[in-house]
């Protein structure tokens, strides 16, 4: 079978597999729903996810070890992931093919020439990784403070090495080299000794912005599937909504449409994962190249070249995506994929400048502390950022969250939403709970988000831990926040209307919402008695709607003096009320005396020791605009500093 056909089968297979994993990340028990499908597998194969989280956390979380396989294969084979596996790459290749179908040969070859701007992806990779590597730098500087001997040792070894190299004439200018060594070690010592390295750097995992695998998951999970599903209505019974999904869709659409400008635009210029593979592929044992022999200079090899790696001349191996189109196109069978280097020569390694490297590293290193000047991790933390149950404290959360949208996808109630501005730029598209969207609040007996999270930014809770039961009883339940009753909007508190929907729906036992019983005299409710019987009172100067006070919530009592208890009104005409016959007045109110019409109110209050911030109350509150009971992140268990309890 032709190598191109094999590649296409592989691309289609992994693309379909990816779409399948997105589809089956749905709540339910059907075979096409969550049935233990390895829905994170493609994310786990992504070494940028693994490398990013290793830099931020110095651990390799569970399934992310799959990335080792990808790295090993890349070191052996080159960028097979880009050309054979990446579902985003497959989309680009398809649209690139559409875009160039009608183009002339010369135009196609021109579109596939290497451009210096292809170095941008390396700079992006460097910036994103240095932003994630703050702790590594801090540790490095910390060494100088803790053990000043070590920089001295490094200096001594460096000096010896340079001298040796100078004698061997490898280093032409010993004076200059020693100068560089002195200033580097000096800077290391100075910064380490006199500054607080921990305070200099922040750690932020922002690779998910551009890493194609989280990007395509996010785009399919939160934009494409909801649109398709709303039209088909198969997967979920109610349409899914995602706040600000258009921003995710716009990035996706732009990336796809840019293929009409230059094929594989995203892969060639932007993709930081591709850049990482490019660096690794420098070691590759097998590579594409020309063999010795007669080249007719026809340039057919560049007609469909996906990577713009110029196989016709000195091939730029780091740009080669292993699409194998050149092997197929060459009429002389000049192109090979073998362990030998190209006979025409190779340009190996990424074409990046020292200056560009330093600039992107500096942007990456300084960017995070700059973003954190907003104080969102400290005093200016945003109470609207209510994270899913089991989410780590914000700083650790930002070290792990990929913004892949898997939690938002799997959430059965659609209550997990991508953050827009509330969590800061670092927190864009990270999961927050929005209790107005979706079919309910966070379900008491559900831990799906933490179970699916590929990086444990949301810890994989079990139900006992979420609910604080059995061996977790002493720790108590996981609290996402706390419900606050807005007494300026709540019907029983401010409008004399009975309600307590929030109390009814609180899923906890005992309920976190309890009520304060109160009788409130209604508007214009102090009235003069015209006449009365033991079970009824006729009143002066009223024209009620019949039945108005006969809902079971209204009572009548003498305004003052009398020792009569309030009696429940069972019937109400335009100007008279009837009280229950079972409990008549002992002494009927005298004509001319005053009585009051009162409404029985149950006013909700929240017990912060019980409330977990699930938000079901907020979801159900009949004040449907700005809810009269709202959950904010105070009292969340993930950060003790936000605790309200003594």
């Amino acid at each position, binding site marked *: 079978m032709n190598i191109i056909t094999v590649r296409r089968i592989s691309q289609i297979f992994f693309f379909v597999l990816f779409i399948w994993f997105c589809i089956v990340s749905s*709540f*339910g*028990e059907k075979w096409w729903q969550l049935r233990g499908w390895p829905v994170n597998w493609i994310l786990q194969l992504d070494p940028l996810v693994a490398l990013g989280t290793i830099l931020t956390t110095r651990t390799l979380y569970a399934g992310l070890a799959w990335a080792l396989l990808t790295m090993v294969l890349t070191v052996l084979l080159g960028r097979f992931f880009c050309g054979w596996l990446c579902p985003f790459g497959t989309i680009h290749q398809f649209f690139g093919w559409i875009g160039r179908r009608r183009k002339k040969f010369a135009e196609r070859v021109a579109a596939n020439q290497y451009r210096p701007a292809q170095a941008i992806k390396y700079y992006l990779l460097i910036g994103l990784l240095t932003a994630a590597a703050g702790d590594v730098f801090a540790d490095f500087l910390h060494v100088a403070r803790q053990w000043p001997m070590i920089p001295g040792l490094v200096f001594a070894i460096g000096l010896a090495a340079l001298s040796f190299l100078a004698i061997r004439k490898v280093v032409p200018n010993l004076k200059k080299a020693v100068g560089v060594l002195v200033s580097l070690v000096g800077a290391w010592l100075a910064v380490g000794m006199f500054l607080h390295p921990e305070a200099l750097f922040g750690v932020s995992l922002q690779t998910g912005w551009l890493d194609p695998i989280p990007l395509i998951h996010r785009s399919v999970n939160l934009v494409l599937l909801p649109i398709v599903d709303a039209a088909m*209505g198969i997967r*979920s*019974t*109610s*349409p899914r909504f995602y706040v600000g999904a258009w921003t995710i869709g716009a990035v996706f659409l732009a990336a796809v449409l840019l293929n009409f400008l230059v094929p594989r635009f995203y892969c060639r210029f932007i993709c930081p994962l591709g850049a990482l593979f490019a660096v690794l592929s420098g070691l590759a044992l097998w590579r594409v190249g020309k063999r010795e022999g007669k080249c007719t200079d026809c340039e057919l090899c560049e007609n469909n070249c996906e990577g713009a790696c110029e196989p016709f001349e000195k091939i730029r191996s780091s740009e080669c995506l292993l699409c194998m189109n050149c092997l197929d196109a060459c009429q002389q069978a000049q192109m090979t994929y073998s362990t030998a280097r190209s006979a025409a020569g190779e340009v190996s390694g990424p074409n990046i400048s020292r200056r560009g490297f330093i600039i992107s590293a500096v942007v990456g290193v300084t960017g995070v502390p700059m973003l954190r000047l907003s104080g969102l991790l400290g005093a200016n933390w945003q109470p609207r950022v209510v994270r899913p149950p089991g989410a780590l404290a914000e700083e650790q959360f930002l070290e792990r969250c990929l913004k892949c949208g898997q939690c938002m996808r799997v959430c*059965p*109630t659609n209550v997990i939403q991508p953050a827009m501005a509330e969590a800061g730029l670092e927190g864009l598209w990270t999961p927050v709970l929005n209790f107005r969207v*979706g*079919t*309910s609040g966070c*379900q*008491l*007996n*559900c831990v799906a988000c933490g179970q699916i999270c590929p990086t444990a930014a949301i810890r994989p809770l079990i139900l006992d831990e979420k609910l604080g039961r059995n061996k977790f009883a002493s720790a108590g339940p996981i609290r996402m926040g706390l419900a606050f009753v807005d007494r300026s909007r709540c*019907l029983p508190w401010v409008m004399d*209307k*009975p*309600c*307590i*929907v929030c*109390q*009814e*729906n*609180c*899923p*906890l*036992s*005992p*309920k976190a919402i309890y*009520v304060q019983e109160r009788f409130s005299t209604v508007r214009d409710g102090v009235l003069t008695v015209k006449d009365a019987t033991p079970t009824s009172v006729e009143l002066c100067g009223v024209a009620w709607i019949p*039945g108005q006070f006969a*809902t*079971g*919530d209204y009572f009548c009592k003498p305004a003052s003096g009398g020792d009569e208890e309030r009696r*429940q009104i*069972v019937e109400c005409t335009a100007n008279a009320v009837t009280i*229950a016959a*079972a409990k008549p007045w002992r002494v009927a109110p005298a004509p001319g005396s005053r009585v009051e019409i009162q409404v029985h109110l*149950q006013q909700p209050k929240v017990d912060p020791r019980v409330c977990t911030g699930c938000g*079901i109350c907020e979801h*159900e*509150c*009949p004040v*449907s605009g700005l809810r009269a009971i709202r959950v904010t992140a105070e009292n969340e268990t993930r950060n003790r500093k936000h605790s309200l309890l003594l």
Partner: protein
Amino acid sequence: MTNPQDAQVISRRDFLARAAKAGAAIAATGVIGYWLYDRTGPKAQTVTELVSLPDFSLSRVGPKMSIITGAERVRTIDRAFAALGGIEQFIKKGDRVLLKVNAAFASPPALCATAHPQLVGEVIRLCYLAGAAAVTVSDNPINDPQSCFRLTGIAEAVQTAGARLVLPQENYFKPTTVRDGTLIKNWPLLYEPFRGVNKLIGIAPVKDHHRSGASMSIKNWYGLMGGRRNVFHQDIHNIIKELAMLVSPTLVILDGTTTMISNGPTGGSLDDLKQTNTMIVSTDQVAADAFGATLLGKNAAALPFIAKAAAAGRGTADYESLKPARDHVD
């Protein structure tokens, strides 16, 4: 001004053709404008087609009730029907039955916040035994619908018993208005499951409810409402009365095997439950609830919605007048 020498020569034929095209375009603009012209703008409210539920009650059978004590739901419900002369009294061959269960919350059956799956499964089995052509089970729960039906075990019971489960979807709701009502006006009703149905059975547990005093058979119909139905809690007793006016079931099954006596209607703990070992089947939903109140240790008179529903002619609070068949099964 155009210099006469510069003027292009135009043929008559060409001019006429262009004039005709321009004329047609102008005429088309005019016609479309006239056709779409709207002088008054949109009306304040669009009139929608209202639906209403048929009367599912059987006048032929008359008011009947049975109260069976025992701890096993399957046995008590079997006996409860047997005491009324068999379910064949209500379900005939070829009937299409809708079971409106209470599946309001996503909580396990042990917590008794929802209709018990064993009971639902047994009723489906009895319906098919009596010759029912189709049995549908539905509810519009408060929590996430899929989670509710799954966690309560009802979905599995329905599947096992071979009935059809209908989860609510937006387009399944049609507006309805209750005759002589004041609250349910042009309000979305879960109508789709009723299509083609000629028998309706309500299945609900007996539960404490802080706002209304109790959640039983009549309040179970709340689950047929759509929209932001929670606004009706402002007038809870009248809305329950209007639910009784909205729905005339073939019969209701009130499950008092385990009663939720506190922290209702969600419960959430076994401490909220009390073993009361009673199963009620009644053609009169008001009578069923009046009896159910006693399981909660309450008097029907303390629940204004019962008197209101009775006054609206939807049944009697004096359940003893139905001469309920009583029995006990171990």
